[in-house]
């Protein structure tokens, strides 16, 4: 029988509670499915060219997932208790949680998609090679970031997802030096001198007088790009400069 719109207050309350519960469960299920996607990596890869990659990635990605989603199951569960006394507040909290989860679930999709592409061998093994190269650089530079290189829509450092994207579908060794540039973006806030002073950030924020003239000409974002280039050239040498020149368009100097 279709609803008539004149249900009793008890029925309306029950319907409202059911609606809230359905949304809360939906959010919990999103979270569980995202976790299952990461958890399943090490057993889904059996028909892929490089199934061992899935085990490796599973080990690297699981802690990232745990950190990114830390506290969410508890917060979602708490909304249920709040609903009994404050339905409006509970809905607001549920909306807030949904908004917060969207970007993390999007990151999870990128991680899982990238992991499959990487394990399929489509990337010519270059993401694995890049991870190995960056591990070495990060160790030498004392940059503590257990990021993973995965295919993505563009080259990009995403510290929140512990991810460096390798631009799909450009899987040639010629682009490998660009990964050092992406690590350079993270290095801006990580590099410390022996006195634990963060000099790179100081350089970009204006605490370093020599760069004063340039700050008047370029934006802080552009300055960070230049620093990441400096980092890439410093840690890789001619290969980085050559790669940058090859990527550059002289029509846009």
């Amino acid at each position, binding site marked *: 029988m279709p609803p008539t719109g004149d249900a009793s207050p008890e029925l309306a309350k029950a319907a409202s509670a059911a609606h809230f519960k359905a949304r809360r469960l939906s959010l919990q299920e999103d979270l569980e499915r995202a976790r299952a996607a990461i958890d399943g990596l090490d057993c889904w890869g059996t028909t892929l060219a490089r199934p061992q990659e899935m085990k490796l990635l599973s080990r690297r990605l699981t802690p990232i997932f745990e950190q990114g989603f830390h506290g969410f199951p508890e917060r979602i569960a708490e909304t249920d208790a709040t609903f009994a006394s404050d339905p409006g507040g509970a809905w607001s909290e549920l909306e807030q949680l949904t908004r917060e989860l969207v970007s993390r679930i999007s990151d999870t999709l990128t991680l899982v998609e990238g992991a499959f592409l990487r394990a399929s061998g489509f990337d010519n093994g270059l993401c694995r090679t890049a991870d190995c190269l960056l591990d*070495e*650089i990060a160790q030498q530079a004392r940059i503590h970031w257990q990021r993973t290189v995965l295919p993505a829509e563009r080259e990009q450092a995403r510290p929140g997802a512990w991810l460096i994207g390798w631009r799909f579908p450009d899987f040639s060794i010629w682009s490998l030096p660009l990964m050092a540039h992406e690590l350079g973006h993270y290095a801006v806030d990580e590099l410390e001198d022996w006195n634990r002073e963060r000099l790179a950030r100081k350089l970009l924020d204006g605490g370093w007088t020599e760069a004063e003239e340039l700050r008047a000409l*370029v934006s802080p974002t552009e300055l960070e790009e230049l620093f990441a280039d400096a980092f890439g050239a*410093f840690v890789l040498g001619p*290969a980085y400069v050559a790669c940058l*020149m090859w990527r550059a368009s002289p029509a846009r100097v």
Partner: protein
Amino acid sequence: MHPGWGSRVRVALAIASAAEPCAWALEQLLVPSWRRSLQALGAEDPPPQTSSALDAFAVSALRCLEDCSSAARFDACEDAQTFEDVVLHKDAGVVDGALDVARVCEANGWSEKPPGWLIGVVLNAVWIARMRKPWDSDCTRVAQTGLDFCRVLLDADGARR
């Protein structure tokens, strides 16, 4: 947002020329190549008013990097010259196959180095080879050889773990 390519290349060249032991690669390959690219299009280096500021920034960035990470400088490029000589001059220009490259590395005592370090060597070797003969289709084989070698390294490293 990205600054112009000219600014980016200028800063990278300044860092590499100041910090990089492999200066010949810059003098003979990189700088002339960039100038040729610009001249072919009638373009110039970054406008003069920004040049001195870019150079100052590069100097500051270099000081910062050296202060922060005395060990971070990737000395792989120093050995790249040796590696590149071998790659280019053996067997009519290109080493044929990853195993040959691996043997070259062993002969140079590089096999004990971490795989990430060796990948840096290979990367510099293949890029220097390409900059020397950008028109040569052998560049594709150089890249493939380099890539195969990286895979051999990583598989060996994976098996060790």
